């Protein structure tokens, strides 16, 4: 058997151009985690259900485990690491999770944060029911979701009050 052919994949990740040579079948989630070593994106099921690997592709939330890295070469990707403010303080959704006890073990959290970040761009003033729907594509085993819903509402409140968010 021959070794696998490698392809150069160049991406803009969290505003920085990064690249690696990988096989065609390398999942975007694995590419980010193991080739680029950005391990904030987590993998919970590898079949697109749990949402832990959700990243923003050109600003839209997608499952990193359902996309090959080669198929998004040239794109801009944002991960949970990239939602931290430029001065190192927490981004607004991250801060809201902290203030609302929106996480316990923290494994599913990055996928929720990226999802909510994108959602609030489209709907900056969700009701509680809308907040519940907004996170209904991500699984969490620890929190019972109650404080994640609270985090969505808190993030919206923080944005309204003009709290710094660079992204």
């Amino acid at each position, binding site marked *: 058997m021959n*070794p696998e052919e490698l392809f150069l994949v160049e991406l803009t990740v969290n505003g920085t151009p990064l690249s690696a040579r990988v096989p065609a079948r390398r999942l975007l989630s694995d590419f980010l985690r193991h080739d680029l070593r950005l391990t*904030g994106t987590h993998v*919970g099921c590898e*079949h697109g259900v749990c949402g*832990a690997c959700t990243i923003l592709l050109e600003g839209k939330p997608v499952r990193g485990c359902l996309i090959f890295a080669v198929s998004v070469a040239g794109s801009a990707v944002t991960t949970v690491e990239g939602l931290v403010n430029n001065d190192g303080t927490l981004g607004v959704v991250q801060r809201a999770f902290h203030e609302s006890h929106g996480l316990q073990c923290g494994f599913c959290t990055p996928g929720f944060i990226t999802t909510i970040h994108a959602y609030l761009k489209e709907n900056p003033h969700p009701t509680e029911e809308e907040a*519940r729907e907004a996170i209904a594509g991500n699984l969490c*085993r620890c*929190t019972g*979701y109650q404080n994640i*819903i609270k985090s969505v509402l808190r993030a919206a409140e923080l944005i309204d009050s003009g709290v710094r968010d660079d992204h």
Partner: protein
Amino acid sequence: MTTKSFGEPILRKEDPRLVSGQGRYLDDLGHDALAAAFLRSPHASARILDIDVTDALEVPGLIGIYTYEDLEGRVAEPLPLLIPHPALLNGRTGYPLANEYVRHVGEAIVMVIAEDRYVAEDVVDLIKVSYEILKPVVGIENAKAAHNAVHPSVPNNVSAHSVKEVGDARAMIESAPHKLSLDLFIERSACSPLEGKGVYAIWEEDSQELRLWSSTQTSTGVRAAVAAKLDLPLQKVECIAPDVGGGFGVKIMHPWPEEVLIPWAARKLKRPVKWSEDRREHFISSAHERAQEHHIEVGFDEEGRILGLDVTFFHDNGAYTPYGIIIPLITSTQLLGPYKPASYRVEFTSLFTNTVLVIPYRGAGRPRGAGRPQGVFAMERTVDAIAKYLKLDRTVVRERNFIQPHEMPYDLGLIFQDGRPLEYDSGDFPASMAMLKKMVGWDDFETMRSEYAAMGRKIGIGVACYVEGTGVGPYEGGFVQVETSGRINVATGLTSQGQGHQTVFAQIVADELGVPIEDVFVTTGDTRRFPYAVGTFASRAAVMSGNAIALAARQVRDKALRLAGEALECDPQDLEIVDGIIRVKGDHTKSIALKTVAVLSNPLRYAFDESAKAATQFAVGDTSKPPVPEDQEPGLEGKDYYSPMASTFANGMHAVIIEILPETAEVKILRYVVVHDCGRVINPMIVEGQIHGGVAQGVAGALYERMAYDESGQLQNASFMDFLMPYSTEIPTVEAGHLETPSPLNPLGIKGAGEAGVIPGSAVFASAIEDAEGFEIRRMPISPSELWELRRTMKENA
């Protein structure tokens, strides 16, 4: 004054790291390690005839293929039986890799090590195994029938049998004015943490040392087990639990086969090796829980007081019993909950089946629950049945059977899972029930029911109570150290899976020492920092390590005050510590910083920084005494252990109001109310979070999740597509009320809280569905189609 943090909703110290992608979970480590993948049995019961690796050997990047034949020394022996028990007559454990026979789908047969995981899985696909397929035993009925054997050497598939009696329950039932019998079933579910298991091992050839990381609930347990298996001195093995993405029980089992095999391979290959479990592997090779079948005979008087309770149940323990029979033991002892039947008899039989092994799942364990949800389901269904029979309010029958506050401590006459007498230390059940009824509007519910009925809508209300033994021994320890920078290092051996230990333990130390919480840094689950520990399960961490850390902090405080007293030339009793400064009470001009006392505590020869300069021999000390006085140690630190005489018992009561849709039989949750008593609360925000999460698992176990095995032992829903773990849209907003009856058993007066939410889940929903529909609910979980079918059968029979 230093702000008191015990009892305050302090925001978590671990969050900033975890929300910004800086957590370090198992698979975030070891990027350059070799990767392992496993070939697992596709059959529930089979004999392995041949393993052909010819094609597999051609794959570039392959490092090694290992079968049972390759295993050496104690690695080739059966895995340990962790918790032996006299009732466990026929305990059986598996091998790290299957030795001729496989006994459940998912059992590991071949380990492949390769340059990366993709390649390792390619290799697995090319290995051909031929099997002689045997007839499997699936489900409690088949196990009982014993037409086939899971282990040929175990008669009737029975691993364990136990009978316990308090009084003569059978005679009491016989002579009771009223009798009922019930058959109650609970199906299998699983902990399902979002992060699967994982192991990463580095072997240092030069120093002959092993460092391993495991996504575990007990790093000390894994360390000891691996050292024994690899025949290494304990001192040559260190085990670290990194950030762990949820446990709920499944990660307290150890050593998992992979926890033995990955270090073994790392040593053999002299290269770092890592394995991260994928979701399918987790479903078919980790652990499940809950499947039990109960038969109940109960005798009671006109008032509904239970005179005799006789419970016979069967427990499905899967293919192996490495964790003993903890689950049925917990069911049998915790079944009674807050009630005091005049007599009690419980008999259980634990059965082998060709399915994944079981391990206490929350409620039997944050492990959330272990064996308790089943026991509570059995007891609460029984109480509801008595109420229905006597046409009494369900809460009235409960109140009449409650152990009263003045009867505490209450000895139930049984032996608990820790081998100690089952004695409730505290609790005020009538007060809890009164609070619950008020919160949920129990007495006004009939009005609400009529209002809904007028709109053509059907609603029901359910109630369930539980008592939970928490803070199970034998012990935990704590270490507290003040650095000369003022940084406070705290370590305890047990592990964390999201319970906020870095925060709650810091709260305890901040209060005990009088320092800002920002200065306190907690490490858990790292044998390099604290080698003695048991693990995180059964809602024990806050009770056990919390108290141990408090005791260690008190030692540090005493030593600091003594040294400060010498420096300030005053009686230590006149001193206080506020915001990290030790000062004379009432005279704040006389003071010394805690960090300066840390400097004084450690007389130095070498000045490596400014604070050290102050501690060098020419700077400090009474020249008439040795630099470190006899019977003292250098450094400002303390270590202590907490080992309780007995478990402390938390309790709670849940009520749910549901609506059942007429066409689809879908259950909608209108309100979910929890009243719980976990003693003194360290951090109410974190306790409430634990309850939310527990309730979510309770709802999941009652209405959605189950392990769907077919008759050949194939798990048909081994993915998140088919195993219905609820999303936010299925989980209610929890209204929680808190009652604090401090535990008299420990210095901090706390009880465990990790499982409070999950335990009464199936019981409370069964109660509510029965109330709404009017017919008996005897089997949980219940899906809309099952409920719809039940309705139809009831209508036909009517």
